[in-house]
């Protein structure tokens, strides 16, 4: 341990709880750290004690930068989980450092000429420690944000059928839609012309309608319009004498469902684009 900083280190270690309490009282009322105002006081004090204990560990460590990570990463993870904005987390660290110095000043730790020289060295030491911690906390926040966004993006992509909307797989998309619409055509012909009924089979049309809206967004409504029109035309050809009412309602529902899903999926696409910024 370097002799010049020993005095400050001893003070910090023996009085870490007192300094932490003063810091907690400040950070929990400070206008630049509003998110701290509602955190449990004991938890905040604990954070302060952890920070002040780090000072000796860093002084003893062969690699102080690596040692700082033991505090910084935990600090960043805890605050990120509690949704504390980064600027407040950084400002809270600044207040920790400031309270350390205020306490040392209050105790008259550095008074004589030699002590003032020690003060300069100690001040440099605390600044270096803070520099490491603030860099590591910011870096960790960035990493946590990327991981978090990655998870959300994955969920959004799953909802969009792995990039179906605006994706590159146009051939797959068109092929699948063509196949499903062709099946719908055959089914309509079979049920209307051979079985002479229009009841149950139309529910199956919601599969291509919903898929088209997921894959093509608002443009997917054209599939719903096409299938609705097909039902009505087929009805006119094969079900003469049967009232149109039910098929008109069915066709209208196709368009409504296709439109709503397409509209919602456009919003999902916007969310994905926001996440893509990271």
């Amino acid at each position: 341990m370097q002799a010049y900083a020993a005095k400050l280190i001893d003070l910090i270690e023996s009085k870490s709880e007192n300094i932490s309490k003063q810091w907690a009282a400040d950070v929990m009322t400070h206008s630049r750290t509003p998110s701290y105002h509602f955190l449990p006081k004991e938890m905040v004090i604990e954070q302060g004690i952890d920070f002040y204990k780090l000072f000796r560990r860093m002084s003893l460590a062969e690699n102080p930068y690596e040692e700082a990570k033991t505090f910084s990463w935990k600090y960043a993870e805890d605050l990120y989980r509690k949704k504390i904005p980064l600027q407040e987390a950084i400002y809270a660290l600044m207040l920790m450092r400031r309270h350390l110095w205020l306490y040392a000043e209050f105790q008259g730790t550095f008074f004589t000429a030699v002590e003032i020289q020690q003060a300069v060295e100690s001040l440099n030491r605390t600044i270096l420690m803070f520099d490491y911690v603030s860099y590591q906390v910011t870096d960790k926040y960035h990493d946590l944000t990327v991981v978090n966004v990655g998870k959300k993006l994955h969920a959004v992509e799953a909802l969009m059928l792995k990039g179906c909307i605006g994706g590159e797989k146009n051939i797959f998309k068109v092929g699948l839609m063509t196949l499903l619409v062709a099946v719908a055509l055959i089914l309509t012909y079979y049920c209307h012309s051979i079985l002479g009924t229009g009841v149950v089979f139309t529910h199956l049309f919601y599969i291509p309608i919903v898929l088209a809206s997921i894959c093509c967004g608002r443009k997917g409504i054209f599939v719903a319009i096409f299938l609705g029109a097909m039902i009505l035309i087929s009805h006119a050809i094969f079900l003469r004498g049967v009232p149109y009412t039910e098929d008109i309602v069915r066709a209208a529902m196709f368009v409504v469902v296709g439109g709503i899903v397409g509209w919602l999926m456009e919003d999902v696409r916007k969310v994905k684009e926001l996440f893509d910024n990271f």
Partner: protein
Amino acid sequence: MAVALYAFKKGDTMMKAFAAKLVDLTQKNAEAIARQWAKDVKTNEKTYSYHEAPEEKIIRQAKDFYKNFQMMFFNESPYEQAKEIFEKYAEEKYKEGVPLHETLYALILMRRHMWLYAEFQSLFSVEVEHRQAVESLSRTILMFDYIMYVVTRQYWKMLKLEGLAKRNTQ
């Protein structure tokens, strides 16, 4: 000494004179300090985004920074001044695509190079000057605390604004 952790009080001219020594030296030698900083930031592993940046461009940025820093240092409301100047600085860095932790570390290096230059010039060598050194250092740290807070807050604001702008253009 802790007084310098907070703002200068009106009429506290003695302390102002003490702390001014470091800033005056920085201002007079802004070019030399900026060049040393640029050399550091272009090779430091924590400021990767600066490695490919044109040297003259980042030197100019650092010189502007030191000039603005002097203005802020002597301002009676340094925090307000920091907001005015460094929100714009944060926006520029954000638009250049520099990650926040690298921008902050580059600022830390700016402060370190100010201090290294002063040490190299033996600015605070005799006994009385050590007290001045503490005052200068405390005031400088306070200014940098404000700058780092403003820059961090502006980065997050920019991120949100970009998101909103994208939504509105859809």
